[in-house]
């Protein structure tokens, strides 16, 4: 057992957080269970939508759909392989199954079932996966830190990391109407509202330029876009204009928007609530190389480690997923450029 490094006892005076607390990341405005409510509305419009979960109904907000449409909801129990298998079978009889669990269980436990059961034949399965990245204080067992890398590698699968309640709400009816398998990360419970529902419009496969700028580019996905928006403000207060491109669809990846931005501003910070390998940063790097661009790239994200458990604010700082880290990386790129 010599290869396992045990952790030293913690410093009790340093205990600051509760790992079970729901963290809304200091958002001024939140929405309650946006996915659950959006799925109920979609279910009212479209009788073919059905719901499934693997013993995480209350924890993925799909209990709202179960209460509204009990006959169209299937509790599968703690059996994620079967969750995806049953969903694929329902899809093959013409239904639109939304299957919920956590990122880790869907992607690690049921990978073969997503790849072969759902994706190979483009079965119309929607996998909705909670606790993306560092949104839980539980450690390696529960933190979905490599799910985007795993899912991006599956052919035919659409992969979405929504920013906030606005985008989740908009995405539900869109992916229900989109034929084929979809993997979407879920933010649950009280979810921050960062994007203006009046002006933001989610589209599968389309990145959205949220801020115009010329000094540095930030490309972000998922909840990191909320932090990137704040980083843009911080940079502005220091006289720097940052462009911000929000990429909620990791696959198919909007290469065109990325290249068009980076041709103008060849300095980019990527920000993702995920490993820096295999997710957004890798997709940007692929696009840059294939597009023949020369770009300076700083990657904000989790290094290839299993993360600690702890309170979410602690984890976000510990792994540098905070607004300050995005702003600092952007600043570094600008200073590097001006010193050339």
């Amino acid at each position, binding site marked *: 057992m010599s290869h396992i490094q045990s952790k030293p006892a913690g410093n009790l005076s340093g205990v600051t957080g509760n790992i079970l607390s729901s963290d809304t990341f200091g958002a001024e405005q939140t929405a309650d269970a946006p996915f659950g409510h959006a799925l109920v509305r979609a279910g009212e419009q479209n009788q073919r939508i059905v719901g499934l979960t693997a013993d995480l109904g209350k924890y993925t907000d799909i209990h709202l759909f179960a209460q509204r449409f009990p006959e169209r909801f299937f509790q599968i*129990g703690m*059996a994620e*392989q079967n969750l995806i*298998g*049953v969903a*694929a079978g329902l899809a093959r*009889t*013409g239904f639109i199954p939304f299957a919920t669990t956590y990122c880790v269980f869907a992607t690690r436990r049921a990978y*073969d079932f997503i790849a072969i059961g759902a994706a190979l*034949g483009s079965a119309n399965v929607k996998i909705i996966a909670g606790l993306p990245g560092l949104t839980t204080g539980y450690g390696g067992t529960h933190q979905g830190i490599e799910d985007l890398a795993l899912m991006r590698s599956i052919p035919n699968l659409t992969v979405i990391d929504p920013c906030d309640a606005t985008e989740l709400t908009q995405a539900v009816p869109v992916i229900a109407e989109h034929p084929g398998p979809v993997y979407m990360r879920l933010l649950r419970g009280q979810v921050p509202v960062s994007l203006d529902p009046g002006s933001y419009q989610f589209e599968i496969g389309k990145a959205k330029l949220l801020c115009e700028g010329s000094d540095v580019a930030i490309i972000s996905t998922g909840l990191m876009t909320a932090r990137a928006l704040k980083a843009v403000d911080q940079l502005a207060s220091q006289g720097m204009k940052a462009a911000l491109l929000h990429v909620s669809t990791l696959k198919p990846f909007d290469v065109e928007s990325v290249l068009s931005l980076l041709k103008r501003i060849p300095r980019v910070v990527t920000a993702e609530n995920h490993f820096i390998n295999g997710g957004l940063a890798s997709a940007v790097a692929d696009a840059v190389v294939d597009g023949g661009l020369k770009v300076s790239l700083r990657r904000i994200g989790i290094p290839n480690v299993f993360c600690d458990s702890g309170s979410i604010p602690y984890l976000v700082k510990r792994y540098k997923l905070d607004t300050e880290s995005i702003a600092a990386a952007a600043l570094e790129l600008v200073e590097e450029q001006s010193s050339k």
Partner: protein
Amino acid sequence: MSRASTPETVSKVQSLEQRALSLRRHVLRMAERVGQGYVGQGLGIADLLAVLYFGEMNYDPSNQTWPDRDRFILSIGHYSIGLYAALAEAGVIEIEELDTYGADESRLEMSGSEITPGFEMTGGSLGHGLGQAVGMALGLRLDQKQARIFNLLSDGELQEGSTWEAAMAASHYHLDGLFAFIDCNNQQADGPPAKVLSVEPVHEKWRAFGWDTQRVDGNNIQALLSALDQAKTVRGKPHAIVLDTLMGKGVRSFEQREKNHFIRVDANEWSTLREQLESTQSDGERIP
């Protein structure tokens, strides 16, 4: 309960035995072309496929998307050689296409997938079939359709835990339109399950999971028909019919091989094998 031996049932059994013989001929034809394949499985399961495709299932060979069709779910993709034979015999695919089995650019893959007409899903990564069968049964029930699901699994496949996840769900949801056939041919890739990882007592496991369960000789058409009749009288439970089958059934050399999970045969031996199939059928010999 067994079917009374009226002239009508006797002729039905005889007609299905002829279909099974025809399927076995197709299996040999496919394997001879390519010199190899999962011949033992194809021959061993021919009786069940004859019963289902020519005595039990409602389907339209010219319309694979008919919503009311009974569905056959091949979980064990490598048994595709048997299903291709049945689909060709039923007119879903052309008999001539059988000559492309396992060839480059063919849609008749050694391990079958949903690219082939008549394949409802992609098996072969074992442990997928029953879960999808459960989903289809739930979907059909939601649509208030009477169509049924017939899923073929194997003894070795029972080592995949996902099969048991699905078995629990089928029982929980009382899916009595779901029929699972478990082919116990006592061979998996590394040898007999008793040596690889014991799966017996198979029927007791299914019964313990809440399924209506029978165990029959899977190479006896009459026994298969009777088992189906019996299963259809049971409501509120999914049905497991455990089949004891002989790999290579009908071709003595294959029946007697110790290792017949995947078979390669030299080109000059096929005529002997074909003769064995025809002579076994003509004298009605049953090899124990």
